[in-house]
């Protein structure tokens, strides 16, 4: 595979092929194809933007761990172009949003696609500029800050437009913030996995408790698990306590029947009750098995949660879902692998 990927243009061909396949699948008028694409889009846009945001956030605060995975994290930048393409493929699907066809200023199909596309492209441009800057150059922090700014807006728009407006007029002001924090959380999880894949276990001579890049990433995941729980709780408590019909409907639709109810509980476990206790001990923070288990738990938690968000209102088709995820996963692995080979 190495030799195959090293050839020039192979990556471009791969991108084009995957794009064509996904286009073919999602444009066939089967019910469920659009919904599957939306789920794949939501998960990957979170992870991809989150990876770059993790590198950018690390760069702005001079975090030492960034150095060991920076290049791989930033290698996913071209996938933002793929994401933009996927957004275009979603155009026919937008007609199934509850507000479609009604007059509106904010919720109009052209503006809806336009602003999301604009911020995805802007994210691509700023990420490219950040990736092109030398790791310790003077302007790097400024470029990282610009990317983070676009990242926050882009993720908030994803949350408010693509997810929240599916259940218009349901409103939660926190959803945007919740999405970008979750994306960053996922970004750190990917960083930890990449670190383990690239560097293996930390040197054995290290006494427990000494600093390593891996333990720093574990601390970040640990902290973000708490932060995620806080945001989740803040959102849940306000809706639960207020008990206003149009608000609680969102939760009620998800917890009143199996199997969504079990999946909701699973989300809580995958994003908090597993990573938090697992990473609590100092020793565990540099144990490769514990860290990778926690990171995988976080990533699958994000995936399940996106599914739970969409499930009551969107139809899926298993075949399309499988193809979309396979394509995106292959692309993700390919770009990261290529960056690693040419390190």
């Amino acid at each position, binding site marked *: 595979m190495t030799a195959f990927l090293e050839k020039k243009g192979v990556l471009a061909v791969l991108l084009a092929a995957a794009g064509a396949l996904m286009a073919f699948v999602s444009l066939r008028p089967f019910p469920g194809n659009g919904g599957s694409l939306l789920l794949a889009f939501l998960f990957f846009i979170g992870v991809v933007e989150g990876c770059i945001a993790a590198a950018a956030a690390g760069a702005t605060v001079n975090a030492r761990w960034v150095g060991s995975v920076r290049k791989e994290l930033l290698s996913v930048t071209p996938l933002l172009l793929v994401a933009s393409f996927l957004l275009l493929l979603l155009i026919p699907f937008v007609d199934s949003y509850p507000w479609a066809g009604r007059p509106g200023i904010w919720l109009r199909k052209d503006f809806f696609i336009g602003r999301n596309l604009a911020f995805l492209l802007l994210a691509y441009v700023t990420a490219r500029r950040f990736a092109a800057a030398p790791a310790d150059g003077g302007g790097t922090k400024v470029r990282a800050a610009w990317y983070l700014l676009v990242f926050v807006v882009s993720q908030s728009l994803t949350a408010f437009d693509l997810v929240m407006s599916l259940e218009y007029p349901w409103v939660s002001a926190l959803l945007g913030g919740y999405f970008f924090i979750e994306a960053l959380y996922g970004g750190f999880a990917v960083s930890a996995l990449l670190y383990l894949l690239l560097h293996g276990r930390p040197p054995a001579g290290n006494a427990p*408790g000494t600093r390593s890049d891996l333990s720093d990433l574990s601390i970040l995941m640990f902290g973000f698990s708490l932060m995620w729980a806080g945001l989740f*709780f803040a959102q*849940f*408590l306000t809706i*639960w*306590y207020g*008990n206003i019909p149009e608000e609680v409907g969102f939760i009620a639709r998800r917890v009143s029947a199996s199997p969504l109810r079990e999946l909701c509980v699973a989300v809580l476990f995958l994003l908090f009750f597993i990573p938090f206790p697992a990473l609590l001990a100092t020793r565990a923070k540099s144990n490769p098995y514990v860290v990778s288990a926690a990171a995988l738990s976080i990533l699958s938690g994000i995936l399940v949660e996106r599914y739970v968000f969409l499930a009551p209102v969107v139809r899926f088709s298993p075949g399309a879902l499988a193809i979309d995820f396979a394509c995106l996963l292959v692309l993700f692995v390919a770009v990261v692998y290529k960056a690693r080979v040419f390190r």
Partner: protein
Amino acid sequence: MAEPMVFREKERFLESLRELVRDGVPRERIRVITPFGVPEVEEILPGKRSKVRFFALLGAASGTVTGFAFTILTSLSWPLIVGGKPIVSLPPFLIIAFALTILFGALSTFLGFLLLSRLPSPRGIRSEVEYGNAFVILVEDGERR
């Protein structure tokens, strides 16, 4: 007790400390007094990791349990529905349990610290011996301190 060795510079002090350990003076007989925490001392005289962390864990756990037990049992002892919320409303009770986790955890850590470092020490309060900014090594005679 032997004469204290007093150093004005950290480096000299660390050197002598290393020398003492190399010369085979048992670790238990060496006492060190520094004006601030010196991480290198830990490396030269490896001791057990501080047990303060167990106090933290115990305190925090007892706080969580107390928080939930307190709120649930008192609500059940006179079940009165207020504001349409269930008698045992776990989301609000979680807030109380969280606050108590932190409170008990922090206080028990502090008490653990006092206990383990034998503070407050009336002898220390009355003592007039001050080493100021110096780094001091005391080698005790064979007996336990």
